[in-house]
């Protein structure tokens, strides 16, 4: 055995998913469709030395997300996540409107 870790953490997919989405998926929360664990995508175990990127549940190792990148296309499979909760900044109140405390 080489001693090199087999996986890296979920922050590894930030670049690959930024290409597809306007949001940073690694700060999203998701639920594992297999065991129900809820966690940040950044906490997943990511196997990126493969024909695609595979993110697995840190608890049960089930596949949460697969991303395959061809030169002109990408495929994203999220069937292992029963939901994703994505933080979106709340709209900023117009400056003219007084804010009542």
């Amino acid at each position, binding site marked *: *055995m*080489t001693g090199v870790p*087999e*996986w890296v953490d979920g922050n590894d997919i930030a670049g690959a998913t930024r290409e597809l989405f306007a949001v940073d998926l690694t700060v999203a929360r998701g639920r594992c469709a297999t065991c129900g664990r809820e966690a940040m995508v950044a906490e997943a*175990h990511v*196997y990126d*030395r*493969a*024909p*695609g990127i*595979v993110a*697995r549940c840190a608890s049960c*190792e089930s*596949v949460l997300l*697969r991303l*395959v990148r*061809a030169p002109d*296309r*990408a*495929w994203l*499979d999220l069937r292992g996540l029963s939901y994703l909760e994505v933080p979106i900044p709340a709209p900023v109140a117009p400056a003219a409107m007084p804010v009542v405390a």
Partner: protein
Amino acid sequence: MAVVTRGFTGRGRREVDLPPGQYLTDDFPVLSAGPTPRISLDEWRFEVADGDGTRQAWSWPELLALPSEEITTDIHCVTKWSKRGTHWRGVSLDTLLSGVDSDVGYVMAHSYGGYTTNLPMADVRDGKAWVAYEYEGEPLAPEHGGPARLLVPHLYFWKSAKWVRGLRLMATDEPGFWESAGYHMYGDPWREQRYWGD
């Protein structure tokens, strides 16, 4: 002492006879979509199954007792590296599938750890596929798929499932792990069948 006589020497690499888009490497890169399963040889089994259940199964000693073959072959990974003249020992799938009707069209290879990949039956018969358990004269290391992996070298190497545990017989073709996420159902390196629609 083994003496290897090379048909050519030294000056750069012969890259003719490589499938399109591939480059040569001397390494054996480890690719894996999940944790390396640790399988005890006492519990290891290779099963051939159909919709009605297991048809035939072999334990580790039973596999080793079958006639084995030495295979020397080039291998081609879809991530674009190719490796020349790798040496393997394994049992031909002709032996393991000898009891299976010729009208079965496809197989799904299943691995310890959950990986799957689909293959036409015609591509795993007639001396084209093996369950390999030695690489370069040594027991196959876990990171390369040991104790045993599929070896189907005429297709991209993702079809040569690591940690193989059996084959499920199928009447119609179904996608495996990578084939359901963009990779080609067949995966012929000479026709550069990497992705859907290639």
